[in-house]
């Protein structure tokens, strides 16, 4: 029941439930995309949502909507142009009957069992190691800043014959500072140690990704995706922008264009390419990374052609550019 003080619902709302996606206009159901009512299909959709992705039914609604303004209470839809609106309640107009709840529970259970299984994926430890490195980076910056500031307080040696000698700094404090300096060294060496551990682990855990991207970038990508199993299920387009979440947020707030490169942008081949080619290269690299992730998730050994194929593509993009270059530019 909507009391007089309740805000009116938005004109057009996309509603997602466990059994489908729906378009509601002025409180009336105008499009219903129902998920197949079998436990496997339902569980698959739960997996997609848990990974923050859209389910096929939502994609169909968005397709038909063709960019018209709509509201949602579900943040997963926001990157696809739908507006987060507190008035959107994610509720269907009364008439829509809910399928038997036992079906839903069975699907939730099998999704939970699978999610827990995937959580023991040993590559998750790579993610923790990467995050630990990030933690250390932050702490190291803090401590380094403090040490610089502290050292800046040291009086210069007094010139000969200064009439009033300065009162000396308390030795206990200087000892404290020395301990802090030792900690800074310890942080650095722990950071290096984590880096070495990652570098050593990656070629074994993810030989294909590691060969394609180098161990460090491969590890970062794995960390962003939440493990090799997750990464292997992502489409190339998503892999291409992984790690650009912050840019994405800025984009959502209207402060920036949508990100075109995520972490993959750090790959040396892309870094060294001219701006105009980076998009193409990132796309190609994301495609190969998707294949590499699938190989690695299935435990396949190193596939020799992936890296070569990407290198070949990079060369091709380059020669296309050289061929296209207008003569005036060719000095």
């Amino acid at each position, binding site marked *: 029941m909507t009391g007089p003080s309740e805000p009116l619902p938005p004109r057009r709302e996309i509603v997602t439930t466990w059994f489908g996606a729906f378009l509601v206009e002025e409180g009336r159901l105008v499009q219903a995309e129902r998920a197949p009512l079998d436990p496997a299909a339902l569980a698959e959709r739960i997996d997609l*949502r848990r*990974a923050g992705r859209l389910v096929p039914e939502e994609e169909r609604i968005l397709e038909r909507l063709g960019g018209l303004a709509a509201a949602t209470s*579900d943040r997963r839809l926001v990157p696809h142009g739908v507006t987060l609106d*507190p008035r959107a309640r*994610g509720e269907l107009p009364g008439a829509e009957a809910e399928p038997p*709840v036992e079906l839903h529970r069975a699907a939730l259970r099998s999704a*939970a069992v699978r999610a*827990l299984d995937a959580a023991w994926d040993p590559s998750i430890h790579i993610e923790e190691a990467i995050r630990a490195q990030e933690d250390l980076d932050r702490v190291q910056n803090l401590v380094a800043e403090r040490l610089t500031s502290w050292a800046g307080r040291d009086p210069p040696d007094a010139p000969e014959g200064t009439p009033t000698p300065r009162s000396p700094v308390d030795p206990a404090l200087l000892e404290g500072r020395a301990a802090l300096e030792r900690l800074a060294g310890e942080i650095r060496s722990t950071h290096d140690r984590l880096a070495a551990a990652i570098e050593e682990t990656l070629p074994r855990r993810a030989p294909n990704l590691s060969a394609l991207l180098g161990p460090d970038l491969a590890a970062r990508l794995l960390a962003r995706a939440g493990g090799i199993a997750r990464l292997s299920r992502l489409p190339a387009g998503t892999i291409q922008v992984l790690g650009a979440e912050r840019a994405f947020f800025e984009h959502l707030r209207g402060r920036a264009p949508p990100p075109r490169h995520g972490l993959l942008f750090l790959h040396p081949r892309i870094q060294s390419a001219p701006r105009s080619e980076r998009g193409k290269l990132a796309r190609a690299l994301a495609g190969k990374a998707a294949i590499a992730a699938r190989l690695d998730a299935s435990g396949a050994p190193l596939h020799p052609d992936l890296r070569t194929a990407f290198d070949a593509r990079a060369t091709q993009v380059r020669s296309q550019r050289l061929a296209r270059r207008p003569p005036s530019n060719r000095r």
Partner: protein
Amino acid sequence: MDVTEWAGVYREGRQLYTRNAVPGRPVHDEELRRADGLEYRAWDPFRSKLAAYLLHAAPPGLWNGCRSVLYLGGAHGTTASHLAEALPEATVYVVEKSPTSFAPLLRLSRDRPSLVPILADAQLPERYAADVGRVDFLYQDVAQRQQAAIFVENARACLARSGRGLLMLKVRSVTQRQPAPVILRSARSTLTSARLAVLHESGLAPFSQEHVAISIRG
């Protein structure tokens, strides 16, 4: 066994109980008691902040009539199992992000079909909101820095209009630099600026010194 003003909760003296959904089997090593041909499980206020809150004059009928509950920070399911027993007709969705805690929770739910564990981060409610729908009762005990913000986000995504909520706010810990009153004040303002009405606040001593229970209406 006496009934209480909270649906599904019984008491004998100061000791609270719920009806054991799996007779003969305790969840940990809690006391099982037969009365009137039924089996009850003791609900330990030292282990469960919700039991502590009930003993601290929680509003009567706190969850009466609820058909669905969202429980954030389920851990091994100690509290969630009692809540599910107190509300046998309701679905209790339990979100827990640590796989290590989730494993026993999942095991526990095998014999309790109305207890639905979800392995997810409560900071990202959009990942489970479609499954949870709008619940009548939101309970949170996550003991983490962003606790009030997490509660607000989940209320926005999953709480029914005029639904009730209970936030077990951790106000004291070794790593938190702010004093308890500051944490409490800032949580209160996070809740009210999200238009949640704070109904009731209560400490949980002597069962827990570190938490304040905040009861809200959406």
